[in-house]
Structure formats: C-alpha cells, structure tokens
C-alpha cells in the first residue's frame, strides 16, 4: 500500500524531508508499526523516531493513537507534541 507521509517540526528536521510516499510491507498495519518500520530505514529515521512515545500522529488530518489501523489512509503525519496558541 502506497501512502503519503508528512513530517513536521523536529521530526521533519531529523528525517530531512517534509513529505514522501512510502510503501510499507503488508505486515505494517498500524500507526505504531509504521513508525517502527520507518525507524528501521536508516540513521536519520532512527533518530527522528527514537523517542517514539513522544511522537504524535494524524491520519487524514485527525489525531490518532499508535494502535490505529492505517488501512485506507491517504495521508499520515508524524510530529512532536503541539506547542501552538
């Protein structure tokens, strides 16, 4: 399944790109599993996802938890806790 992945703030800086389309293997079915898979790609991703419990995710612009299924997602975003307002 090809899916668009977006990165923001220090996740973006560590990964080194704002977005990309990735094709995780079939066994990667949840947001958390996708983070594990991304972290294994290279050192930059490993650094970006090293404190995985801190990173928040959104599917199609709605906050989701790590155990949320990614099936059907058009856009998955990873970012640090928000600091707006």
């Amino acid at each position, binding site marked *: 399944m090809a899916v668009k992945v977006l990165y*923001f703030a*220090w996740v973006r800086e560590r990964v080194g790109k704002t977005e990309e389309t990735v094709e995780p293997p079939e066994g990667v079915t949840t947001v958390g599993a996708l983070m594990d898979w991304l972290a294994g790609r290279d050192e930059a991703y490993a650094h970006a996802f090293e404190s995985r419990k801190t990173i928040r995710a*959104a599917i199609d*612009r709605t*906050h989701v938890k790590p155990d949320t299924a990614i099936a059907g997602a058009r856009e998955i975003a990873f970012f640090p806790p928000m*600091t*707006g*307002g």
Partner: protein
Amino acid sequence: MTVRIQREPFDTAAEVAALTRGRTDIGAVVTFTGLCRGADDGRAVAAMTLEHYPGMAEAEIGRWVAEAEARWPLMGVTVIHRYGRLEPGDLIVLVVTTSSHRAAAFEAAEFLMDFLKTEAPFWKKEEGLDGTSAGWVEAKDHDDTAAARWKAPASAPKV
C-alpha cells in the same frame, strides 16, 4: 464560526465588530490575544517561527469550535492563528467568543485556548538573541492539565 490560519497580523477590533455589528442579543464578548514574548522561562527570545500543518490546523480548530458551540450557548466564535516568523510583541493567536451572558463567553474562550495549546498542529521554534536557534519549544505538562479539566467527568459546562 470563523477560523483562519494566516501569516499576516489580525485586527482584534475588526474581528469583534464583525461578530457584534447590528446585533442586540449579545451581552458578553470575551477576547483572548496571545503575544510573542521576549523571554521564555528566563531565556531571551529574539524571535520565534511557527510551523503548522496546513489543512489539519483549520480542521482541528474547527472541530473544537464546533464542540464549544455544542457545550455553550454562543452567538459567534472567531479563531485566528498566525504562522511564520514572529518577534516579541507580535500577535500570535486570537479567540473571540460572544454570548448573551458572561459565563458562557469566558468558559468557551478558555476551553478553546486550552485545546489550541494542546491539540492544534502548530510548533514553535525559538531563536536566541545571538541569532542562533534556541530550538523547538517543548510541550508543557500544565497545558495538558488545563485541557484535561474539560474532559472530566461530564461534558456539561461549569456553573
């Protein structure tokens, strides 16, 4: 409801006028304005850059405004959040709530600010006074605590 994410400054008075002009049923208007400060936790800040998730920022704030409108008898709500590079004294965020009575307007404005702080996809990066980056602002526990108070135990407004 009006929700805008923009680089430009905003005019609080014009936003309030847009909500109240010609109406005689509004008895209470609360505005919250957030400004960029020249120091954060004792560390001098020359400027900050606000990054956001375009599309999600509008959607997420819109969901919280809809929730506020469901909880309190509001007559109009405006939320504006800026992004880009801001210097101390610059406006960052505006929340305007209107209602017939003050309790609803106050509570809805506080509610919206608490969720803007913790749920709206914005991230602040500060620059130190020497022009070097002082890094990303960390999320604060007390902001999560402030947001959590609206969740328990019922969704009814406080008296």
